[in-house]
């Protein structure tokens, strides 16, 4: 089955979802993927492997901190949010809400307002 890629306006959404899920508690990669699937009702079907390069970039940018811990008997790399990551998450959510509000206003205005072109 051929998957469609995200449209460009979804850039930054995987990052925001990762920060959101990790804002509750630290997780390893597999757990994180399952949490995102559960929370979004599987509306987003990420290529599961793609989550790791994004996690590594967020770690390099200082938004995440990784530690090696034993989870259910196995040594895993566990990711947790840093203070910088928390701040980034708040900014991303505020930005998302602003954009979402503006788009909704535009879409609703389209129903009741004057047409832009004659």
């Amino acid at each position, binding site marked *: 089955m051929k998957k*469609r890629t995200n449209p460009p306006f979804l850039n930054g959404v995987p990052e925001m979802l990762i920060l959101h899920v990790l804002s509750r508690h630290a997780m390893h990669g597999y757990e994180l993927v399952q949490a995102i699937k559960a929370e979004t009702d599987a*509306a987003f079907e*990420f*290529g*599961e492997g793609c989550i790791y390069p994004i996690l590594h970039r967020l770690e390099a*940018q200082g938004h995440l901190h990784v530690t090696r811990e034993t989870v259910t008997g196995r040594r895993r790399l566990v990711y947790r949010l840093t203070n910088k990551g928390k701040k980034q998450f708040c900014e991303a959510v505020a930005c998302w809400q602003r954009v979402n509000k503006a788009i909704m206003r535009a879409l609703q205005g389209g129903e009741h307002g004057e047409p832009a072109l004659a």
Partner: protein
Amino acid sequence: MGNPLWLDELRQQLFELGLPRWYIERLAEEMSDHITDILEEGTSMEAKNAKRIAERLGGAGALAQAAATEYRKSFFCRNHPLLTFLVLPVPVLLILLGMSLLLSFGIGCVFRLDPFSSPSRVRVIAFGMLWIPFALSAIVFCRLALSSGQPWRWAMLSCSLLAVLGGVDALLGLSLHVRDVIFIVTPVTIAFGFSWQWRRKRRQSILEGQPHQPSVET
């Protein structure tokens, strides 16, 4: 444990894309854990598992491309190319020149050599050491452009700047004909050498496909 063939292919692709070994091993370790988790989900047969892994994780080549793209996004020079490739070469060159001069001076003191009155081979070594910082700086900035996936013009900019500085240095210093040419030509030669390597890698990555993006279920 994971799927050895899939992981080997991933490692190979990451290696060919020029990612460092520590990053390759780290990603492979995490993918191996992830595959083990997928396999523990159900009791499918091995053949089914291989198919399921490919469906869930995507192809090794696509993942390697995505990893290379994300890895390069975290480079400082991606966000500040002007500062990195136009401003930084000057302090880097000055530091390397200082180190080279100190080393030359140290060697001269230890062996009681004077480059101006010593035999020709000593002079060649002494001036050769002054040439090394230009070559090293050019290599550093070319490698930086290559590993961060920056357009090649940024590396050329750094090397041109180094060539100009080399020319100025040669004019201000003792005018040895060979030295003048080396100072100017070396950074440019290095830039062209790396340019060839960069183009080869780029062509290879284009042939392997576009970077994989997370997808939305439709």
